[in-house]
């Protein structure tokens, strides 16, 4: 287990993050882990070389409010999570709509466990053969 971690729920997320700002923490990053039935999302904040983490569990298909109105720097990593894991993040300051890192024809949500394959040479070959 990570030291200095607080477990929260999606509904309290914005309130908790808002409470962190006056304490002088800096946003480091957020991590998303696919644990089968749900996503394990951890936010990391740092002050004087000590990390403080907020952990929440999000069911697959649930939506996550963006913290970019509070920490502008979070929007890049939230767009990345949207692309790579397929998490539905709402309220982003700049929304790339699934094209931040991945291009057309890339696998859909490649890092979530059952991943849809993208357009590759074998798939294109099958199309040519008329399958």
């Amino acid at each position, binding site marked *: *287990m*990570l030291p200095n971690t607080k477990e929260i729920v999606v509904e309290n997320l914005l309130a908790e993050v808002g409470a962190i700002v006056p304490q002088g923490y*800096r*946003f*480091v*990053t957020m*991590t998303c*882990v696919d644990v089968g039935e749900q996503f394990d999302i*951890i936010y*990391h904040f740092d002050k004087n*070389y000590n*990390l403080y983490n907020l952990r929440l569990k999000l069911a697959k298909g649930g939506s996550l409010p963006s913290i970019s109105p509070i*920490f*502008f*720097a979070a*929007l*890049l*990593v939230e767009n990345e999570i949207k692309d*790579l894991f397929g998490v539905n993040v709402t309220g982003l300051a*700049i929304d790339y709509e699934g*094209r*931040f*890192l*991945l*291009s057309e024809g890339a696998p859909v949500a*490649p*890092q979530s466990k059952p991943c849809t394959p993208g357009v590759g040479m074998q798939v294109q070959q099958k199309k040519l053969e008329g399958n």
Partner: protein
Amino acid sequence: MSRKSIVPFGPQHPVFPEPLQLRLVMEDEKVIEALPAIGYVHRGLEKLVEKKDFLQIAFLVERICGICSFIHAQTYCQGIEDLMKIDVPPRAKYLRVIWGEVHRIHSHLLWLGLLADSFGFENYFMQAWRTREAILDIMERTAGGRVMLGTCCVGGVRKDINEQMLGEVLRTLDKVQKDLDNIIVGVTKDYSVRQRTVGVGKVTAEQAQTLGAVGPVAKATGIARDHRTTGYAAYGELGFEPITETAGDCYARTIVRVRELSQSIDLVRKAIKNIPSGPIFTAVKGNPEGETISRAEQPRGEVFYYIKANGTKNLERLRVRTPTFANIPILLMMLPGCDLSDVPVITLSIDPCISCTER
């Protein structure tokens, strides 16, 4: 009447070392807003981690970036050693510091050349890279590769540097110091360079703190934050103070990096003087289990690794957040209000490493 237009800067641009697209909303010659678009070198390395075993990942992780590669491997190995409670021998820690600081010197010299190239000072670009060749020779003689050292592994280092080679390293560093003293005035005191960099891309310390800037970008605004002060590897025994400036513009970032170059040379000299003798490697048995966070100081700032392992030989999750990822929001704050010709200078002054950002 002024007109607004959108100029796509990049992804293929002669001044950028890596593909990054900045969509600039311009009004005549001034930039009003900038929107970054990345994704041109996304290789999906975080997914590849699930297919390789945790010892092979030390090689994979080195190849995330071609400029700060050793420190990626060092951070990863430190994380796994933390999880498996492995004690790294002191000689291995000092060797990691030596290679890490030599890597920092090479990265800053590369950046210095690119910055000069961004305002057309190609002669200086060649001089900086010629000085860098001596550093690459050190790395090839001690580790076997010019940039991809391949020496850091879980449990220590794979190769040792003997007394004679350490003496050679010191002699080469003396030569590099002399070359640096000759060329550094070309960037710090030259009138044309100062015209292009002083007052350009200014940010305040408050903006750097709220946007989460790291590395020399934050140090140039006065925030004295450097992860080496926490004393990982052998930095605790070498004594280290971060370098800061207060102006927050491109010139301040240049001065911070130039002074870090001299500081790195001193650190290597101190490490070579105090290096203890002993083994360089502890054998690794079993598989890692649990989760941990490992951080280190790359030339561009603080790198963050989140490692989750479940007792098998493949890791469950490896998350890497590199310093350029944290510096892109502050780049978007620096660009509005500048001229189009200042855009390459400002972008290069944060030292962008896009292949790190996208993995």
